[in-house]
Structure formats: structure tokens, C-alpha cells
């Protein structure tokens, strides 16, 4: 009897913590999004779905923009990260660990500080553009800050290691004999890559997309620091609805919409790739 209770005693404190501070808040937020009222006089649950309709109608541009920026960043990340992961996995030799360490090095600096550092580098007369403009290589009016390029670039910068690492892990597991076999059977290098290496790396790509698309689409630090009013993302809207306007029902409705859209995206993507990919990721 005692033995059967042991696992429950072990998970009890941590499980309760997750229940109280993850599951319960989500339910509270869903409930609040369906309430009417204000901070002063309190809220009443009225099942007011109209809040969702109004909130989505008011902020559909920012919502769509966030998903588009997130998708572009993720696609560029796959293309940018794959060669790095490939080279480290197959040609890193004894220094694999060193390369991975160098990739993770920036993570010892706060996320906000790194992003602000980019702002200094990219600012109009700053470290990068200043000398280029002085040398006449760029027109004086040229700017990067405040454009979608700066925001998406920031997203790519901040999430690159989260794409490299899972792809690296998948590539690292490939038995070199499988690749040799393809070569022995006279497959050209590109064919070997397309028919052997890439399919075997797909679980890694999947995990990478999961780890980058969701945080990139819901990010608001990059668009706030590197963007302008024409690059506002949904995260900024939610943040200011909560912390500046204290408009809790609208803010909760927007958070829920964002999460629902992202989850639907992730599951649709999982179905397209086969569900066992998701399971393998969650097993890890």
C-alpha cells in the first residue's frame, strides 16, 4: 500500500504547484474573458462572447501581422539553422561541443539586453549605419530600425539556437553507414541529402519549429525595441491592454485567441507530419 502511494507523494507538491499556477490561471483567464464589468465595480460572468468578436475585429491587423512575422522568422530559421547544424554534426569532429557552446554563448546575456544591443548597432547614425553612411555607401535617409526587417531579424537572432539544437540532435543520431550506403549505391550528394539525410532530420525540424514559432509569434520585446507603430505585434497589444489600460476581459480574450490560433497551427502541422513526431518531441 505504501509503495503504491510513493509516486503520488513525490508528485504532490510539484503537481499542486502546476495545477494552482498553470491550470487554474488558464481557467480564470477563460472565465474573465467572458465577464463584463470593470476593475472598480468588479466583474460578472455573463458569457459575453461579443468581447471576442470585438477584440478580434479591433486587433485583427496585429494578430495577422504576428502570425506572418512568426512564420517568416520560422522559415528563415530553418534555412539558416540547417547548414550550421549539418556542419557541426558531420564535420565538427572533436570540437562539436565547442561549436555548440559558442552558439549558446549569447544566452549568458539577458534577452532584453541583447535586443537593446541590436538597437544600438542598427540605430540610424549608429555603429553599423553611421560609418556606412559616412563612406557614402548608403543614402543618408536609409534606416533599418522601425521596419519589419529589424523586427523579424531580431526574432531570428533571438531564437536561432532553439532551431539549431534540435536539428543538430536529429542529425547527430543518423547512422553514418546509412549515408555511406546511399553513396555506395551511386546516389549523388544532393540526392543523398534530399532522400536520406533531410527526411531523417525532420523530427528535429519539427521540434525546432515548435520551439520557435510559438515564442516568435507571441513575442513583444523585439517589436517594441526594434520596431515602430507600423510593426506592432499582438503581444504588445495584450501587454498594454493588461498593464496599461487594465482592460482585463479584452486582454484575456486576445490572449486566449492567440493561444488557440497557435495551438491549432501546431496541431495542424503535427497532423501533416504524422502524430508520432509530436509524441517523440514530448517524450524528450
Amino acid at each position, binding site marked *: 500500500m505504501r509503495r503504491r502511494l510513493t509516486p503520488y507523494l513525490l508528485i504532490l507538491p*510539484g503537481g499542486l504547484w502546476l495545477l494552482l*499556477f498553470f491550470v487554474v490561471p488558464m481557467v480564470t483567464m477563460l472565465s474573465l474573458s467572458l465577464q463584463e464589468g470593470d476593475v472598480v465595480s468588479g466583474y460578472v460572468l455573463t458569457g459575453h462572447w461579443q468581447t471576442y468578436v470585438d477584440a478580434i475585429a479591433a486587433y485583427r491587423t496585429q494578430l495577422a501581422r504576428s502570425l506572418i512575422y512568426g512564420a517568416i522568422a520560422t522559415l528563415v530559421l530553418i534555412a539558416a539553422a540547417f547548414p550550421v547544424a549539418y556542419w557541426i554534426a558531420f564535420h565538427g569532429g572533436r570540437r562539436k561541443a565547442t561549436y555548440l557552446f559558442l552558439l549558446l*554563448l549569447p544566452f549568458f546575456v539577458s534577452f532584453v539586453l541583447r535586443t537593446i544591443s541590436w538597437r544600438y548597432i542598427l540605430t540610424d547614425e549608429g555603429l553599423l549605419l553611421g560609418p556606412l553612411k559616412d563612406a557614402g555607401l548608403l543614402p543618408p535617409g536609409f534606416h533599418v530600425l522601425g521596419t519589419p526587417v529589424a523586427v523579424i531579424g531580431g526574432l531570428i537572432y533571438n531564437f536561432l539556437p532553439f532551431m539549431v539544437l534540435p536539428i543538430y540532435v536529429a542529425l547527430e543520431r543518423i547512422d553514418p553507414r546509412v549515408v555511406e550506403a546511399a553513396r555506395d549505391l551511386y546516389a549523388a550528394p544532393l540526392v543523398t541529402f534530399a532522400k536520406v539525410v533531410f527526411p531523417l532530420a525532420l523530427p528535429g525540424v519539427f521540434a525546432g519549429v515548435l520551439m520557435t514559432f510559438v515564442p516568435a509569434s507571441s513575442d513583444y520585446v523585439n517589436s517594441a525595441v526594434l520596431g515602430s507603430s507600423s510593426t506592432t505585434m499582438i503581444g504588445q497589444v495584450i501587454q498594454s491592454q493588461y498593464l496599461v489600460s487594465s482592460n482585463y476581459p479584452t486582454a484575456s480574450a486576445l490572449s486566449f485567441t492567440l493561444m488557440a490560433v497557435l495551438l491549432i497551427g501546431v496541431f495542424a502541422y503535427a497532423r501533416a507530419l504524422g502524430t508520432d513526431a509530436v509524441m517523440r518531441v514530448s517524450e524528450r
Partner: protein
Amino acid sequence: MRMLRVYTWAVIAWLTLPVLVMIVFGFNDTPGRYNQTWDGFTLKWYGRVFALDDLTQALVVSLVVALVTMLLAGALGTGIGYALGRFRFRGSGALNLVMFATMSSPELVMGASLLTLFVSLDAGLGAVTITIAHVMFSISFVAVIVRARVLTLDRSLEEAAADLGAGPWTTFRTVTFPLIRPAVGSGMLLAFALSIDDFVVTNFTAGTTTTFPLWIWGATRLGLPPQVNVMGTLIFAAGVVIAIATSMRSRLRHRV
């Protein structure tokens, strides 16, 4: 292959560039708060690193929260990780699902939902609510790391201890725990790192309390004082030293 090599190094250089800018401008002899143009080399900011009281205070809050988070998430996460790796029990599926959800939900949504909970409970926001939030998102990472280690353990070692008359607690203390200690250690380090760097969830659960990342965020418009660069550099250096020391120690142990 040479192209891939050049490309990889270019990516590493691109990743490191903002870090170098941060470090270099900590040595900048800037007259005021506008620390964006090079005015000559100085070490004076290292001497005056704690000159801004509110910044120092924010750093202390960050360190205390990270330390408490590390200990709590370490203990709670180890419990879950050990149970999931060792026992089969009803409800483990649901627990796995919740853990997966905490690791893949947008931080923004987790922060926002915690804020709604705290607001509806009328709980005052501050260091306690920040710590509650940080422990919440760190537990799963510790649990996953510990579970992976427990799954690879040789069970016969524990059985041997039991055969020699050790009770379950003695077995855990003298055999199991020493074996999973490296995993618990890396899980706790990860929890510390996640906590001290967190901005999004903290922004929602802090109220008027300020942590190091929140202070930087608030000061962006005014320009960051060189003290921020110095503190960032010191945290960076400490992190790198700890990471190298940990990997060297485990390499030495493997050799023996």
C-alpha cells in the same frame, strides 16, 4: 564543405556581435547616460558598478528570486522527474501533458493568466508572485532532465542496497540520489538561468517590483547607463566560467 565552415563561423560571429558591443561599451568613458558613441577607454564604471541604488536593488531582487526558484523548482521538479522515471501510475499521462503544455505555451499567455489569477484573488504583486511564476515554468524543465537520468539508471544497484538491508529512504539517500545528482544539478542551474533572464512572465507578475531585466526595459528610452553593461558583462562572465567548469568536471569524471 569550406563554405559551410565559413557560414557557421559567420553565424557564430553574428550571434556574438551584440554581446561584444555590450562588453566594449562597459569600458566607454562616456560623460552622460548616452552610451552609444565611443569616447575612450576607462575602467571607472567597474569601480562605480553599484552607484545606482535602484539598479543594484533590481539586481539583488533578480538574484534572490533566481536562488529561491532554483531551490524550489529543484526540489519539486526532482520529485516529479523521479516519480515519472521510476514508477508507472495512474495520472502520469495527464501530468506529462500539463508539463508539455507549460514548456510550449507562449510565455505571454502564462504571464497574462497568472496576472488574471492574482488580480481576481486581490493578491499583491511583488517578489513573491514573481517567484511563484518562475517556479511554475521551471519545474517541468527540471523534471524532464531528472526523468531522463532516472530512466537510464541501473535498477540492480538499488535492489542490491535493499538486499543489504537498507530501507527505502536509506537507499534513496545513499544510492539513488548520488546517481541522479548531476541531473538535479543541471536542472537547478537551468532553473536559475531561466529565472534570472526572464522578462515576459516577470513583467506581468511584478507589479511595482523591479528585476534586472525589468529595470533595463524601463530605462531603454532614457538610454542605458554603463553600469548595465558592466553588470551584464559580469553575469556573462560568471555564466561562462560556471559552464566551462561544469563541463570540465564532468569530462574529468568520465576519464576516471
